């Protein structure tokens, strides 16, 4: 998947300015940036929902704007921040919705589709919830269901839109571990939009840092997460050192009025 020279605006103001990136097969790419830096817009452009005014996005060599939504959905699955439901579907029904791009117009899901959905629930660790109403689940459980739905699409690319945004620490870790396993097992390419610099640094091969719609830095975590760049992009003073266990950069916020600490 790649984007070349993408410019996008909703109204007058450019939200994305000349953004280019390439995601290799099997890579985990993190997209970072402060609020209003264009992360969500970039995600919209990458999945073909927003049409850039300039530049183009290629998905497995094809222009994503020229592909049908069905075809895009068979190649690329999106895991959103949360699930919005007005009606009471069961977990299995939600997972089966991932088969939509594979079915004909009038079609019903067959045994095979059911098997795929059940296997996805199993992989996402929520097969025990299959017949529960999605609206009754906790935030962590719902996120797993969304993951299962995405897996049921049998995509080759996963786009994650801050999937950990509403989760507590333990559920964040569980989700990240689960994604790590799936990434290995299924050989998925993953694009992860995140606000959490430390988490992104832990799990991504490369990071892309957006500043006001432009790519400020693109590279392995060590090159992107530095005190100078974080100060410049976020306007926040942080301490960057290396995680003592696996050696990736990590940040610690420095609060002005705390000085050298509380003692």
């Amino acid at each position, binding site marked *: 998947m790649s984007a070349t020279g993408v410019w996008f605006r909703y109204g007058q103001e450019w939200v994305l300015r000349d953004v280019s990136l390439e995601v290799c097969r099997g890579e985990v790419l993190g997209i970072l940036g402060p609020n209003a830096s264009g992360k969500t817009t970039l995600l919209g452009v990458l*999945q073909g*929902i927003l049409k850039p005014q300039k530049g183009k996005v290629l998905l497995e060599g094809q222009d994503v704007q020229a592909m*049908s*939504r*069905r*075809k*895009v*959905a*068979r190649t690329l*699955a*999106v895991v*959103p921040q949360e*699930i*919005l*439901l*007005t*009606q*009471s*579907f069961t977990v299995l*029904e939600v997972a089966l*919705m*991932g088969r*939509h*791009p594979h*079915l004909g*117009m*009038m*079609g*019903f899901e067959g045994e095979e589709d059911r098997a795929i959905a059940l296997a996805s629930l199993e992989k996402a660790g929520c097969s025990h919830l299959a017949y529960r109403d999605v*609206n009754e689940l906790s935030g962590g459980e719902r996120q797993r269901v969304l993951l299962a*739905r995405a897996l049921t*699409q049998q995509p080759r690319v996963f786009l994650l839109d801050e999937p950990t945004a509403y989760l507590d620490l333990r559920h964040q870790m569980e989700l990240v571990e689960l994604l790590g396993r799936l990434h290995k097992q299924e050989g998925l390419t993953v694009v992860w939009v995140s606000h959490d610099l430390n988490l992104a640094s832990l799990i991504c091969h490369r990071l892309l840092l957006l500043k006001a719609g432009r790519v400020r830095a693109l590279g392995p975590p060590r090159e992107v997460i530095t005190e100078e760049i974080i100060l410049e992009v976020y306007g926040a003073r942080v301490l960057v050192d290396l995680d003592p266990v696996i050696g990736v950069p990590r940040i610690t916020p420095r609060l002005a009025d705390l000085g050298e600490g509380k003692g």
Partner: protein
Amino acid sequence: MRGVLAWTLIGLTAAGLSGILALGTGPTPLEWRGILAQVLGERLAGGSLDPTERSILVEIRLPRVLLTGLVGMGLAVSGVVLQSLLRNPLAEPFVLGISSGAALGALSSMALGAGFLPFTTPLAAFLGAMGTVALVLGISGGRGRLEMTRVLLTGVIVNAFFTSIIMLILSLSRAEQLHSMMFWLYGDLSGARYSHAGFVGPGAIGALVILWSQARNLNLLGLGERTAMQLGVQVDRSKLLLLVVTALLTGLVVSVSGLIGFVGLIVPHLVRMLLGPDHRLLLPVGALGGAVFLMLADALARTLISPSEVPVGVVTAALGAPFFILLLGTRGARWNPS
């Protein structure tokens, strides 16, 4: 799939039974054996009708019950689709302004004295409905994309405007015209003819098939447009198709029946409570449920003050509201506000 077949069969059986009941009900009661004899033969059914009874059945009751079934079906299906599409549990077939447009057409034709001509009123109502839908979609879709909140609001405004013109027509009309106008506004099936059923039938069945082909898209649209797109739905095309077909269906149905309220609101909720949110199931079963509900309501409307008639819309509302409240209390709504 099996669930859909099973429920459709149950629905068909219920529709058949209600149909026979409705055919038998009226100032001259007809025995069900006699009605069955017209289809199965006298020996198999074990009864018969005399010639007067037969002509009542064939010339008066049958066209009316057929039309009632079609109208109930159309209203219920429109309600199911619009509630999901607009993501609003209060939506019903008339929210897009179709009712007022149709009423304006029908009442104008009556006021101009064309009501006695066969088919002028239905035609005028249908044209009024379609004109209104074009107006609503034109205004709300002006910027290229159909935003459902805009559609809904435009529908409400257009409705309000046309209602004021309808009030004007009513206030200027003579007393003898007023009666038929009021009946039309509350839903009137007393003028039912085979030609009406022939006018509505093919379109309504066609619309149902097209809407059913969009059933999975409707399920996904309920998750929000972005999610639907991510799962492979051509959202803009699907929404437009659903809206236009629903509008056509409602317009057709209203043109021959007037404004029968509550069917398109309550039947969708009933089937949702019973069957859950899957539209592949909701649409066919909702269609049959609407037919059953309206056939029974109309049978009641014909008998309450027999030999005179109550407008069927009065019955649907009077029956529907308490029943609905009862259901809300016992089962809880399947809708969760987002």
